């Protein structure tokens, strides 16, 4: 084993142990804030792992969503949790934790060791070399309209996955909206330092979103990364104390929210009516169609993620 291989092996082992350690400590910690902070650190280490595993597209998505948006969502939820708990009159009593309950934990632990061993065995029994579907993707890449194989899979070869996925995102927002509103929680006013930071970072995030949207056609990037970046800009603005006004309940914003799902449905129907398969584009038009779809999806994903962070319908928030 030469120096290069040894270094790589140590690097991989450290990363793997770090991931397991962080996950365990995040899940075992007694304080919620500690659990969340450790989980954010876990997300960052996951991003490094994707970098190591040559998955740059995923690393971008993980940084924007796993480390950024999920962390912000969890931290904001913690603030709301405290507000809700002080607002509810019912005393928050802890569930009894006697020795018998602790003993019960051993059973799932033993069962899960079996599950883990089974999974590990099945992973180890897989062949060491497998091209998977990469040959097929490579052979058809020229007809897909884009140069990045991941984008080709997401928006052309398996476009129906992405179609459904956009709807899952939309459904999650409808679900959050249907749950009504919560008592107001603490929002710190932004000082001059934060304002300066936001003035620089928010436009930069929007610029980055445009860059990823454009770059996705031939390199790492695409609608998800761009949308998540746009969503992060929305979250940052909300953190600086900006609140969506009543105008956000009006038609133009709803149209933006629906742009992604609507374009997907339109294209799907069009391809079905013209006698092709679902979301099957002619090679000469595929590039422009995918760019259109991605642009719509970027705006929808960005706005949906920002709205998920806000947590309630803009008109509900106005009604208080």
């Amino acid at each position: 084993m030469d120096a290069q291989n040894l270094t790589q092996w140590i690097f991989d082992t450290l990363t793997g142990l770090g991931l397991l350690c962080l996950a365990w400590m995040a899940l075992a910690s007694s304080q919620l804030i500690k659990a969340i902070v450790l989980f954010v650190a876990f997300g960052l280490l996951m991003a490094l792992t994707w970098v190591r595993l040559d998955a740059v597209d995923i690393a971008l998505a993980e940084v924007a969503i796993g480390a950024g948006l999920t962390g912000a969502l969890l931290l904001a939820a913690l603030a709301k949790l405290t507000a809700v708990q002080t607002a509810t009159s019912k005393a928050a009593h802890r569930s009894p934790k006697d020795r018998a309950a602790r003993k019960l934990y051993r059973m799932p632990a033993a069962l899960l060791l079996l599950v883990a061993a089974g999974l590990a065995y099945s992973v180890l029994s897989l062949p060491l070399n497998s091209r998977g579907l990469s040959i097929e993707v490579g052979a058809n890449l020229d007809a897909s309209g884009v140069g990045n194989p991941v984008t080709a899979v997401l928006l052309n070869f398996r476009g129906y996955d992405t179609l459904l996925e956009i709807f899952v995102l939309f459904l999650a927002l409808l679900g959050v909206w249907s749950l009504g509103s919560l008592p107001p929680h603490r929002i710190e006013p932004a000082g001059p330092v934060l304002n300066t930071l936001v003035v620089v970072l928010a436009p930069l995030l929007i610029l980055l979103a445009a860059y990823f949207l454009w770059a996705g056609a031939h390199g790492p990037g695409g609608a998800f990364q761009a949308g998540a970046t746009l969503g992060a800009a929305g979250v940052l603005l909300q953190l600086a104390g900006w609140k969506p006004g009543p105008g956000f309940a009006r038609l133009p914003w709803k149209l933006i929210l629906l742009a992604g799902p609507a374009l997907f449905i339109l294209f799907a129907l069009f391809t079905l009516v013209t006698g092709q398969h679902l979301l099957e584009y002619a090679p000469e038009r595929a590039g422009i169609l995918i760019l259109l779809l991605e642009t719509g999806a970027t705006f929808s994903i960005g706005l949906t993620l920002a709205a998920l962070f806000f947590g309630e319908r803009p008109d509900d928030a106005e009604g208080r």
Partner: protein
Amino acid sequence: MQTLHFMLAMLLLLTLGAGLWRAVRGPTAADRMLAVQVFGTTAVTITLLLSQAFGDATLRDVAVMIAVLAAVTAVAFVQRAWLE
């Protein structure tokens, strides 16, 4: 030269252990957030080093993203979740 980059990245990964220790020990929530901030900066640096080692220019985009998004999480902590 590639090996040097990888070795330095590995050393930086070790310094993440120090951050991890501080994130677990605390004692205040501010200390934990500080540790995550270090995680962010170190992750940016490791990504830049790996970008050179692998000869993959696109990894620099990841570094830019980590730099910005780590700030967003830190702001979320200060503005919302810092209660004690």
